[in-house]
């Protein structure tokens, strides 16, 4: 492991790595978003890299890795870097998969379940309301439980599926982190943009260090371009790492 970089105040900057797969297209957005936070720094990771040196959090960004041909995330999960990501997660490292990144985490088995095509069979790009179901984990502790935030989605396959047993387990372990809701935080069929089971928009693993979500928090970190409700995700990570 290489030595940790230090900021001039002597405090560790929180180090994010953004994985670039061929076909990733939210890699730069994630990188740019992270770079706006004081005390954070970002670097790109190439999908053929086999090591993750000195990182605090790995982002699997949105996009169409390998064109999303065959199935979303199906080919990307075999990239060399995914072996390193798996080890990193097993050692307690923070991993966040956004949109295509979430799909890759599912395909890789780092999170349970699978994605279907959206119920309406069309690509859906819009702001949605999300209710924070679990605000006691590394990626959301800056939000309040039950808080409603506005974050955009943009996907063709975000219709989350898991079998009954798996669902009970998710619920029992508080692994459902965010759900699609209406403005007042009610979980309704109308508020569900893609047919996801239980309006699930994002889940984590049992140890809550791996987080996958279809909405794009990196797109709402600047009110000039649509809002700032996504900042909490990155602020949560930064806080969590600093206080670890």
């Amino acid at each position, binding site marked *: 492991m290489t030595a940790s970089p230090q900021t001039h105040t002597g405090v560790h900057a929180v180090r994010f790595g953004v994985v670039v797969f*061929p*076909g990733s*297209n*939210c890699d*730069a*957005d994630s990188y*740019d*978003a992270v770079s706006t936070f004081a005390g954070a720094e970002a670097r790109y990771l190439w999908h053929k890299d086999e090591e993750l040196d000195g990182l605090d959090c790995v982002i699997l960004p*949105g*996009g*169409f890795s*390998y*064109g*999303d*041909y065959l199935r979303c995330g199906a080919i990307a999960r075999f990239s060399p870097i995914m072996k390193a990501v798996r080890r990193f997660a097993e050692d307690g490292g923070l991993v966040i998969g956004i949109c295509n990144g979430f799909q890759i985490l599912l395909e890789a088995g780092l999170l349970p379940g699978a994605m279907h095509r959206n119920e309406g069979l*069309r*690509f*859906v*790009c*819009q702001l949605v309301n999300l209710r924070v179901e679990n605000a006691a984990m590394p990626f959301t502790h800056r939000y309040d439980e039950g808080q409603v935030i506005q974050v*955009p989605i*943009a996907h*063709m396959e975000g219709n989350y599926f898991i079998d009954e047993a798996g669902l009970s387990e998710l619920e029992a372990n508080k692994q459902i982190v965010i759900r699609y809701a209406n403005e007042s935080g009610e979980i309704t069929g109308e508020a569900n943009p893609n047919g996801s089971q239980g309006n699930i928009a994002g889940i984590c693993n049992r140890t809550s260090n791996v987080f996958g979500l279809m909405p*794009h928090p*990196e*797109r709402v*970190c*600047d009110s*000039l*371009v*649509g809002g700032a409700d996504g900042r909490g995700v990155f602020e949560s990570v930064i806080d969590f790492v600093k206080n670890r």
Partner: protein
Amino acid sequence: MTTGQKPAYELLGLKAREYDDICSRLGREPNYVELAIFSLMWSEHCGYKHSRPLLKNLPTSGERILQGPGENAGIIDIGEGLAIAMKIESHNHPSAIEPFQGAATGIGGIVRDIFAMGARPVACLDPLHFGSLEKARQKFLLDGVVAGVASYGNCMGIPTIGGELHFEDAYEDNCLVNVMCVGMVEHDKILKASASGEGNLIILFGSTTGRDGIGGASILASAEFDETAEEKRPTVQVGDPFTEKKLLEACLEMRDQGLLVGLQDLGAGGLSSSASEMASKGGSGIDMNIAKVPLRESGMEPFEIMISESQERMLACVTPANKAGVMAICAKWDLDATVVGAVTGNGRLRIFDGDEMIGDMPVKALVDEAPTYCITPVRPLHEADVALPDDHYPLPGDLDAALLELLASPNICSRRWVYRQYDHMVQTNNALWPGGEAAVIRIKGSRHGVALVTDGNGRRCYLDPRRGARLVVAEAARNLSCAGARPLAITNCLNFGNPEKGEIYHQFQEAVEGMAEACRELETPVTGGNVSFYNESFGKAIYPNPVVGMMGLVEDTGRIMTHGFKEEGDVVLLLGGGRPAVDGSEYQLRIHGEVDGRIPDVDLNQEKKLQTFVRGAILEGIAKSAHDVSDGGLACCLAESAIESGVGVTVELEAGPRPDVALFGETPELVVVTAAEADLERLERINGAGVLVKRIGRVGGNRIRISAGGKGIIDTPVAEAAQVWRESLEEAVAG
């Protein structure tokens, strides 16, 4: 000759005279490979045979224009060492045959044009025109085209942030699918499509070459459709946005490492066109070895390899020293790359199959010397000299119902069904989301932004092509001004019928001249564009439709204007001297079922003053909303601002034209602005040019209320208007 086999040149679409011309330029008869290449380069699509002389009239230079027409895209300086590359193109014929793949490969093609200039694509816009949605076929086309744009643009990670959507019977057999792409580039990184330096290498990279798209450009875009359209189908190409995304990243890496002498995409005309254009721009020649081209299919003929339009391929000119660098980048992105040729000094395109030379043509003859034709223009009978009187049509009994019907018109209602399918947020630059006057993207790390809009109105151009084209340019500029941006330049796509006919040629000539006048007056030079002829079937042409893509500069992204009302009590002002008319309006078509009369002409000088004033009011922080009066007239303009905000409005008009004309008549040179009472004096002070300002009402309540001469003529709840406006398109598509 009535029987027997037609000569080869004729089957390839060349005229006898053109064939003789080729022979004299070669000093002999061409062989089949050469003939195929000539027929492609001298097709309407590549050779601009009927448009070149007229396009010369367009203004193309200006202080900010770094690159005018001639390269893959135009380039406009936006300061701070940055520039915008932009270009629009049609994919009408391929989309009519296979809407999904036609639209997808349309996006693919225009995006390649942008990164061929060394620019990173930051936005796409898609002006679309179909026949009436009441027909199942039109729904199928719309659905497929939108899904195709979405699939390609979304995968590439380029936000589709604007466009247009019109439905009119004239497009029933010939839909228009125009696509525009905009890119960002630093001045010193701009690339050109030129091949120079004897001994430099020509590298082909990207997808393999197959039979798909053989003859696509020349056959599809240079002929009318008829019963044989079915037979032309095998030329359909399938888009591969994943490969294109890798191509994009690889090309920009090559650019950053300074590895390229020139870069060119392969579009219509395939290798023939790309290679000869690169040689032409570099003042050089190219020797091309087709035996080196990686093929997707076995048994391809040499001429097929030269004219294949397989997608997702690029051609680079590279010094021998930089070859390894280029190859390494291609390997990194898992792209095939092959040296297929070399630059020579002889000014010829020579084709080799291994050691055997199978073609030898002067580059200049191929690229610059396609014959041009001027047709005697004939003014069509339907073009009228006078406008209709205000009382030409009976006054509708229920004006509220007429307003709702217009708001529900597929030409006016919300386009959310479309843009929801486009990833319009990726790259996180959207300072203004789709649905407003114009799209605005920020420039990261700068206060500046870029505003973008497309505009085309075939119906008006049909009634008067010159006035129509002037109006299209003026309206595009007005939309940008209403968003707070200063219009800088346009790109354009000229969609017309068969130019060999006098009436079509007349429409084309008038429209180009009208566009030129407006661009000159409004100081928005033309940086490039595209011509799409032969948009006609069974002898019936589309409406003449010059589509304009315009960009403007936003000085401060903190000062962008939107059209929704902002606050109860704000004063509603009508700016400008335009007089509404029914001729060519959506009201005329929708309520009275006609397209007739003569559209008003735009006073470009007044228009310019009006726009300067509107921008001033925005920059000074006086205007709180701005919206131009366009489709559906003043009533729809007010309703849209009310719907956007959920706040109503009360307006009192003077007794003037008949109520329906006042409400729904269309006119250039009118903008609705709202402002706080306290700011009105300041507004007056900045009105140096004396633009007409009328105070017409106040924002407030939850109804849209309009009276004229003291008599109420509209009283509609905002919620009701909002509902029909929001839901109509989705219902029309589903129903």
